[in-house]
C-alpha cells in the first residue's frame, strides 16, 4: 500500500509537479478514493473561483490608454550636471578602491623608511635623501595644527601605535583608514540597494 500523495496534489493540480512524481501521483490516484476526492475539491475550487467575473471589460481599452497618457508626466531631462553626478556616483567604488591602493602604497613606503631608520647599519643610507623621521615629533606637530577633536583622535592613534612597536603608527593609521574606506563603501552599497529596490521590492505583508 502506497502512502497518500496529499502533499503533492496541489502542485499536480497546478501542473507544477516533476514528471517522475506525476507518474507516481497518477498511479496512486488510480485506486485511492480519498486522494481523488482531494484533487476533485481542488478542481472544484478553481472552477468556483473562475465564476467571479473579471473587471477588464468594464472600461474601454482606448479610453484607459488615453487616460494613462494624460496622467503621464514628462521625465526629468538628463542634464549634463545630473549625468556627471550620476556617473560620479557609479564610480564611487572605483574611487574607494584607488584610495585604498594609495593608502596601502604610502604606508608600505613609510614602513620601509621607518624600518631602515630603526637599524643603525642602514639609517645612514637614506639620511641624505630622507631626513630622519621621529614619530613623536610628527604627532606633536600634528597636535599643534589640529583642533581639539582631531587632537583627541591623534592621541588615540598614538596610544594604538605604541601597542604595535616600531612600526606602530603606520599600522594603526592603516587600520583606521581601511576601516574608514570600508565604512564609506558599505554606505554606498546601502544607498545603492535602497535606490535599486525602492519600488520593485516593497514587501507584501
Amino acid at each position, binding site marked *: 500500500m502506497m502512502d497518500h500523495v496529499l502533499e503533492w496534489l496541489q502542485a499536480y493540480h497546478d501542473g507544477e509537479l516533476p514528471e517522475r512524481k506525476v507518474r507516481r501521483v497518477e498511479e496512486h490516484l488510480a485506486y485511492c478514493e480519498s486522494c481523488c476526492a482531494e484533487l476533485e475539491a481542488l478542481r472544484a475550487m478553481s472552477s*468556483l473561483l473562475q*465564476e467571479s467575473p473579471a473587471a477588464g471589460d468594464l472600461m474601454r481599452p482606448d479610453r*484607459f490608454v488615453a487616460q494613462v497618457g494624460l496622467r503621464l508626466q*514628462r521625465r526629468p531631462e538628463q542634464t549634463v550636471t545630473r549625468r556627471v553626478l550620476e556617473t560620479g556616483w557609479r564610480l564611487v567604488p572605483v574611487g574607494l578602491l584607488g584610495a585604498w591602493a594609495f593608502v596601502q602604497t604610502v604606508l608600505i613606503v613609510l614602513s620601509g623608511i621607518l624600518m631602515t631608520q630603526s637599524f643603525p647599519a642602514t639609517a645612514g643610507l637614506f639620511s641624505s635623501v630622507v631626513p630622519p623621521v621621529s614619530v613623536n615629533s610628527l604627532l606633536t606637530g600634528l597636535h599643534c595644527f589640529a583642533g581639539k577633536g582631531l587632537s583627541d583622535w591623534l592621541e588615540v592613534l598614538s596610544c594604538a601605535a605604541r601597542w604595535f612597536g616600531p612600526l606602530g603608527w603606520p599600522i594603526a593609521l592603516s587600520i583606521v583608514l581601511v576601516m574608514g574606506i570600508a565604512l564609506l563603501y558599505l554606505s554606498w552599497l546601502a544607498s545603492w540597494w535602497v535606490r535599486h529596490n525602492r519600488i520593485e521590492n516593497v514587501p507584501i505583508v
Partner: protein
Amino acid sequence: MTATTIPAGIECEWIARAQQGDRQAFAELVQRYRAGVVNVVYRMCGDADLAEDAAQEAFIRVWQHLPRYQPRSSFRNWVYRIATNVALDVLRRERDATDIEIVPLVAAQSNPEAAVERSERADRVRQAVLALAPASRAVLILREYEALSYKEIAETLDIPMGTVMSRLNYARTQLRETLKGCLEGG
C-alpha cells in the same frame, strides 16, 4: 488573463523606446498589459472603480521607473509586481473600499433567478478572496486568475518558491472553509 501574443522582439523594442521616453511605445505596452493589470488590481481591491484608478496609477509608476527596468527579468512579472504593490497601497488608503460597491458583472440571462443566484455566488467568492490576508491573496490571484507558474509568482512577489506554495496552500484551505456551502451546493 494573459497578454495578447506578440513577438518578444517587438515588445523589447517597445520597452527600449519607452525607456527613452517614447509615449507611443509605452501606450502599446499599456494596451498589452491593461487587462492583466486591471484584473490583478481588481481582485486585490474588490472594487471596479478603485481598480481602474489603481491600474492607471500602476502604469504611471511603471513609466516613472521604466528607465531602471533591467530586461533580464520578465517585463510582465515586473509590471505585475508594481500592480500588486499599488493595490496594497490602495487598500491601505481605503480601508473601507471593499464594502463600497458590488458591481453586477453577470450578463443578462434568460432566467433571472439563475442569474441572481450566480451573481450571489460570484459575490461570495469575491468576498472570500478579499477576506484572505493580502500576502496569500496576491499569490492566489496570480495563480488562479493570471495562470502564472510558481516560479513566475516567486519572481513577481520576490519571495521563495516554498513560500509561494505554502501561501497558496493556506489560501486554498481558507477558501475551502469559507466557501464550503458553495462547493457542496455545486
